[in-house]
C-alpha cells in the first residue's frame, strides 16, 4: 500500500484529522472515509457537477481535487447545510418547487445554487432566471429539465432579498 498522509481541515464546522493516500480524491475521502455520501460520483471528470462541495467558500468538483489538498481548508458538504431547525432555505425551495425527481444530482446542484446565491455575479442587481441558469450550467440533471430548479432558486432570490 502506498504511503498515507495526515491532513487536518474543517468539515461542516468541525475540526477533522485523518490519513489519506496521496492519490485519493476529495470525493472518495468524503464518501469512503467519512461516510458523507451526499456528493455523488457521476462522471469522475468534472463534467456533471454531482460531486460539488464548497472548499474555502468556493464550489469545486470534489472528484477532481486531491484529498491531501484539503489540508488546512474549510469544507462544506450537503450534509452540513441543514440545521437542527430543519432544511436550509435552498433545500426547502427545491422540495417545495418539485425540483427533485430521482435526486441523484441534487446535492451537487443545491451546493452550486447556495454558492450562486451567496456570490451574485452582479452585486446590487437581483439575479434573473438567466443569471441562475448560467450559474447552474455545470450541473447536469436528466430528470427535471431544469425549469423547477430555476424556479426554486428564483424563489430564494426573492425570499432572501425581497425588495
Amino acid at each position, binding site marked *: 500500500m502506498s504511503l498515507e498522509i495526515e491532513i487536518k481541515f474543517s468539515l461542516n464546522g468541525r475540526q477533522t484529522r485523518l490519513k489519506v493516500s496521496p492519490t485519493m480524491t476529495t470525493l472518495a475521502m468524503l464518501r469512503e472515509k467519512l461516510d458523507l455520501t451526499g456528493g455523488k460520483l457521476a462522471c469522475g471528470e468534472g463534467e456533471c457537477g454531482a460531486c460539488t462541495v464548497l472548499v474555502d467558500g468556493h464550489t469545486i468538483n470534489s472528484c477532481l481535487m486531491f484529498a491531501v489538498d484539503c489540508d488546512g481548508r474549510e469544507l462544506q458538504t450537503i450534509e452540513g447545510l441543514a440545521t437542527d431547525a430543519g432544511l436550509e432555505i435552498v433545500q426547502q425551495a427545491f422540495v417545495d418547487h418539485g425540483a427533485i425527481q*430521482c435526486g441523484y444530482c441534487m446535492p451537487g446542484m*443545491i451546493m452550486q445554487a447556495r454558492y450562486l446565491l451567496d456570490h451574485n455575479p452582479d452585486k446590487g442587481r437581483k439575479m434573473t432566471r438567466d443569471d441562475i441558469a448560467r450559474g447552474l450550467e455545470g450541473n447536469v440533471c436528466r430528470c427535471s429539465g431544469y*425549469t423547477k430548479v430555476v424556479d426554486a432558486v428564483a424563489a430564494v432570490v426573492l425570499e432572501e432579498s425581497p425588495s
Partner: protein
Amino acid sequence: MSAAMEKSLAKKTVIGTRVPKPDAPDKATGRTRYINDMVLPRMLVGKILHTDRVHAKIISIDTRAAKALPGVHAVLTGDDIPELRFGPTRDNFPLKSKKVRCIRDEVAAVAAESEEIADQAIALIKVEYKDLKPVFSASEALSKGAPVVHEDHPDNRSLYYEFSHGDIAAAEAASDIVVEHEFEVPYVTHCCMGPSCVLADFDTTGKLTIYSQTQYPYNYKMDLAPALGIHPGDIRVIQPPVGGAFGSKLDVYPFEPICALLAKATRRPVKLTFSREEEFINSPTRQPVEFRIRSGVNKDGSLTFRSVDALLNNGAYTSWGPTTPVIQMRTFTGHFRVPAVEYKGLAAYTNNVYAGSFRGYGNVQATFVTASVMDMLAEEVGMDPIAFRLKNAQKSGEVTPQGSILDDCRLGDCIEIAAGKTDFLSKHAANIKNRDVPGTRKYGIGIATSIHNAGGAKIHKSDGCGTILKLDDYARATLITGASEIGQGIDAVLSQIVMEELGIPFADITIVNNDSALGPWDVGVHASRTTFIAGNSALRAARAARKQVLDAAAKQSNVTAEQLDLREGHVVQADNGVAIIKLDRLLRQMHFGEDHELVMVTDYYEPNSEPEDRNHVGNLSASWAHGAYVAEVEVDTGTGEVKVLKITAVQDVGRVINRLGIEGQMEGGISVSLGYALSEQLQMEDGKVLNPSFRDYKVPTAPETPEIELHFVESDCKEGPMGAKGIAELPAIIPAPAIANAVYNAIGVRFFAPPLTPEKVARALHQASFQ
C-alpha cells in the same frame, strides 16, 4: 361530548394540487442512500473486462496473473460457468466464451477487496483473439455473404414486424400526390446521473438477494434467473432509490448476472458499478432506425395512404430496442386518419452496440418521421400546418386500423389550443416572409403531434398491478404497491389517492415499494402506465378500506355508511362535516373491540385492454392520449446554431392528480427531447463509441432550457383513476419534430436526421445557397 365531536370539517380535495415528493427532503439533504452509496459487511468490488474488439474469436484467456494478485477473490470467464442464455430472444450470455460480437462484450470479471485491486487484476488478464470480419450497417448485414454475427442466425435477421390495412396499391394509384422520404434517427443514450450499479448477496441456502436499479422487479426475477441457472423464486429484489432510469432498467444486462456470479463464486456480497465511460459504452441506447416512408394525399388535404419500411440496427444482441416496432407502428398506422396503411420493421444483427427501451419506446422515432411528413404534405397541398392536421385528425369514437379505440379523442382540441395559444398561423406566415430578409437571425415556429398509450400497454399477458393497504391503530396508512419509484413521483400520486379516500394527512402515509418479497406483482414502470394502473389499484384498495371503516362507524351510530365521510382524520357526517369520531379511535375500537377487525385490504387491478393478436390488432391500452406541441426557435444562419426559445405543450392528461409532479414530468421529458433534436448522438465508428463522456456527448443544461408553457386538457378518462391518463412519454416524444418543423419554418431547410447540430445546419444552409 368530546372535542372531536364539536368539529365541522369541510370537504377538501387534494386531487390537482401541488404535492412535493415524500422522499424529496432526504434527497435534498444527501441522506438518501442509493445502491451506489451502499456498503455491506465483507463486500467485494466487482469489475468487468470488456473486449477491445468488435468481432473476434476468443482463442484464449489467461487469468493466472490476475488470480495470483493479493486481494483478488475470484476471476471468472465464460469457461468457468455453464452457457447461460438470457435476454428477450435468449441471444445474450453473461460472459462471452467463444467469440465477441461487439465492443461491449464481457470476457472476464473480477471480485476483489478494493476498486484499485480490481482494476489491477483486470489489467493483468490477457486475451488472445482472432479478428473476424465485422459488419456495422443493418443493410450490409442483410446482404448476401455478409459476416454472420450469430451462427444460429446465418442471415443476420433478428426480429420482423409487419402490419397492413387496406389496399395500398389502389390508394396510391388514386392519390393526387405521392411523396417518398427517407429518415435516419441516431443512437442516443439515457445518461442516468446514477451510473449502473448492482449489489448481489447469496445466503447460505443459495438464495439471492439482489439490490438492483431495475424498474421492473417482478419480471426481472424471471429474466435474471436463466442467466444464473437458478429458480426465479430464489431471487429477492431490493430496490434502493435509483439515480434515473428512463427505460434503461427495463431489462437484465450482463453486468447484473456477472455480479451475481461473482457473489456466488466468492460467497460474499459483491457490488459492481459502471464508470461514466462504461455507462456511455455499455448501457443500452435508444433504437436507431432508418425509415423509408411513402405517403399519399389528395388535393383536398385528405391523407390517402402511408407505407413505412423501418430498418433497425439490432446490434450484437437483442434487448428491447428491436421490439419497439410494436409501439412505433401504432403511430404510423393510427396517428391521423389514414385509410390504407402498412408497416414493415426488420431488425438486423450487426457488430454494433445494442439498444434497450428509452422513454417513448419507438414512438420517439415514429413521431419524428410522421410529424415531419405531415408538415411536408401540408405544404404539398398548399394548406397551413394547422388546417391540414385538423382535417385529418380523428374524432371521438373512431378506431385505428390496429384497433386502438379512440373513445374520447382530443387530438383536434390539442391542435386548436396549441395553435391559439401561440398565435401560430400569423407567426408561421411572418417567419416565411422573413427568410429572405437580410440578416443572420431567422425565427421559426413548428407544431408536432402524436398519440401514445395512456392506460398501460398489454405487451405481457397481464398489465396489472397489486396493492396491499393497511391502517394501524394510530390511523397511519401503509400502502404496499408493486409499482416502482424511479424518481417519477408515483409515491406522491398514490399518497394523494389515499389522502383523498381516507382523509389521512400526507405525513401519515408510508409507501412501500422496494422489496419483491413484500410487494404484490406489477409489470414495471414503463409505457406511461404507473399512475393509471397502480393508481387504479391503490384507489380500489383505498375505497375498500374506506368502506370497511365507514361500515364500522355506521354500525355504532344511527346513520348509514353512505351518510358518512372521512375528513382530516375523522369520521364526519357527509352533509354538514360534523365529526362523529376520530379515525384512530374508531380503528382501535374495531381492532380491540368484540369484532376484532383489522383494516388490511388487497387489490389486483387488471386494465380492460387486450394484447395484440398475431396480426398486431387489438386495443393494446385501456386509454389513448394525444398531445400537440409548438416549438419556437431562433436560427443563426451564420453559425447554424438553433436556439429553442419556447415550447408550448398541450396534452390530454385525463385529469391532473399532482400538478407539481405532472409539470416536472413534462418539463423533464421536453428536456430529453430537446437533446434528441439538437445535440445528442452517440458517435459510432466501426462499432466503437467515439464520445463516451459528457464533454463530447452534449445533454441539455440549464441555459439551453427554453421557456415552457403547459396546457392540460382534462378529458376525465372514465377508466382512469380520478379520471387521470398516463402522461410521461409524450413530452419526450413530440418536441423534437416540432423543433425540426420550426427550423424549416425559419430557414426553409428540412432535416431528415436529428440531431440538428450547428455543423449540420450550417452545412445544409451552405449547400442550399448553391442551389
